[in-house]
């Protein structure tokens, strides 16, 4: 007969998934007011937008798809909402994954009526570009010559009022990349030296740890650390969106994993002591 310790290592994974699901559902339905401190990384993004020159264009670059929208959609939303609150004109551009362009557009289009933003006057969608390096190198020289037209109305960029006086990255006052990939390498490598605009990054949590060296060196002005960063930003903006609600189940699921890792390790060491299979 197998011992309790051995059983701990052989729990049917379906029970674990069921427990996880229950915790998520309970966490979403019963929001527990857990403390959430706003970190300096999220504060960096906020300050960069607050200090951005309203005469210049802000660029929100995206590389995410439906598969990471749990983190990247709320990040995109809070950044765009803050830009709109500050009445900054901005452009969307998508690299790598064409789903990005429609998903980010959807977020901006949904928020636009709330802040009286008009397409072409206050914001524009540059659309999807497959080659980030070539596109960025071109935009450093001339944005309009490189991109040619927008992606919604498919008209030449110079026909939009928002593009008046915007020639290259000298006329850009803020850059943010919301991404599920390592696009920051291209932005920092090919654009950083050509503009004074602060560069902020909103990666998925998986990628965030590798970004700290760039924050430390000052190359990245601020970062939204996955869903947690978006929740911190919602707090700074004073809104209660999806991430404010989701941060409770995030914390609960992490606690569950701590417990399960603890139990698994206990089971392994206990069964070793008993001379059983480890």
């Amino acid at each position, binding site marked *: 007969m197998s011992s309790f310790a051995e059983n701990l290592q052989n729990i049917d994974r*379906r029970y674990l998934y069921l427990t996880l699901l229950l915790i998520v559902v309970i966490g979403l339905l019963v929001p527990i007011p857990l403390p959430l401190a706003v970190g300096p990384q999220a504060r960096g993004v906020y300050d960069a937008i607050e200090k951005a020159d309203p005469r210049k264009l802000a660029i929100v670059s995206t590389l995410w798809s439906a598969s990471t929208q*749990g983190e990247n959609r709320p990040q995109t939303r809070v950044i765009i909402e803050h830009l709109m609150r500050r009445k900054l004109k901005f452009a969307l551009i998508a690299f790598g994954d064409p789903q990005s362009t429609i998903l980010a557009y959807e977020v901006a289009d949904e928020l636009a009526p709330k802040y009286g933003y008009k397409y072409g006057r206050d914001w524009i969608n540059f659309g999807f570009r497959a080659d980030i390096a070539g596109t960025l190198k071109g935009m450093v020289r001339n944005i309009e010559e490189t991109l040619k037209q927008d992606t919604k109305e498919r008209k030449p960029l110079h026909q939009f009022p928002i593009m008046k006086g915007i020639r290259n990255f000298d006329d850009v006052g803020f850059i943010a990349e919301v991404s599920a990939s390592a696009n920051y390498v291209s932005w920092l490598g*090919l654009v950083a030296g050509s503009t004074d605009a602060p560069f902020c990054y909103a990666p998925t*949590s*998986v990628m965030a740890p590798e970004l700290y060296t760039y924050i*430390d*060196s000052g190359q990245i002005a601020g970062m939204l650390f996955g*869903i947690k960063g978006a929740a911190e930003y919602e707090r700074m903006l004073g809104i209660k969106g999806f991430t404010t609600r989701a941060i409770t189940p995030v914390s609960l*699921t*992490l606690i569950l994993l701590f417990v399960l890792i603890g139990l698994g390790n206990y089971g392994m060491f206990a069964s070793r002591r008993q001379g059983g299979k480890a």
Partner: protein
Amino acid sequence: MIEYSHPVGIWIGAIGTLALFSLILKENWLYRLFEHMFIGLAAGYTIKAAWHEILKPQWWIPMTRDGQWPWAFALFGGFLFYTIFTKRYNWMSRISIGILLGFAAGQAFQATANLYIPQIRGSFKPLWVTQSMLPAGSQVTPLGQSLNNILFLVIIITVMTYFFFSFEQKNRVIQSTARTGRLMLMFAFGAIFGSTVMARMALLIDRVWFLMHRWLGIG
């Protein structure tokens, strides 16, 4: 076009989500069906986007409507890549690959310098920080920042020692330094693992919220 918020779109999203989650129980035909649908849709959408957003406005229209006929040579350059599949003409593909490599190498050279030189510069930190060195409004005390910087220096030296493979690490000082470096790397990997778990949980929560709120109207 059915929009994401349209009831039909929500039902399709819900059925797709449940079908993909069914893998948790066991491998099944429904999961495979929706997996193939997802991959097919993504591939189809990418082709459509590549044509409408890039090729048509930047290549086809200038070539056919604006009289910029030299763009036709781009097609020839692109076709050269496919000669790699023939033994007789595969040397021709090297022309296109060579041009592309040249572009990539030039960009990589610039990108590497821009990426890493600021980091090397940023790694020179004062080990004794005074109040005047801290940015205005900083919540860190000079002592705290000094300790941070000392820790930074210790970690950078120990980790770099671990990756120093030019000679055998026989010296006991170097061995213990490298071992400390490895330990520090473990801390970093732990942080990355924790972040990965958080990311996956966030994606799960998003889907569960979609099913509960958008599909079933709960919450």
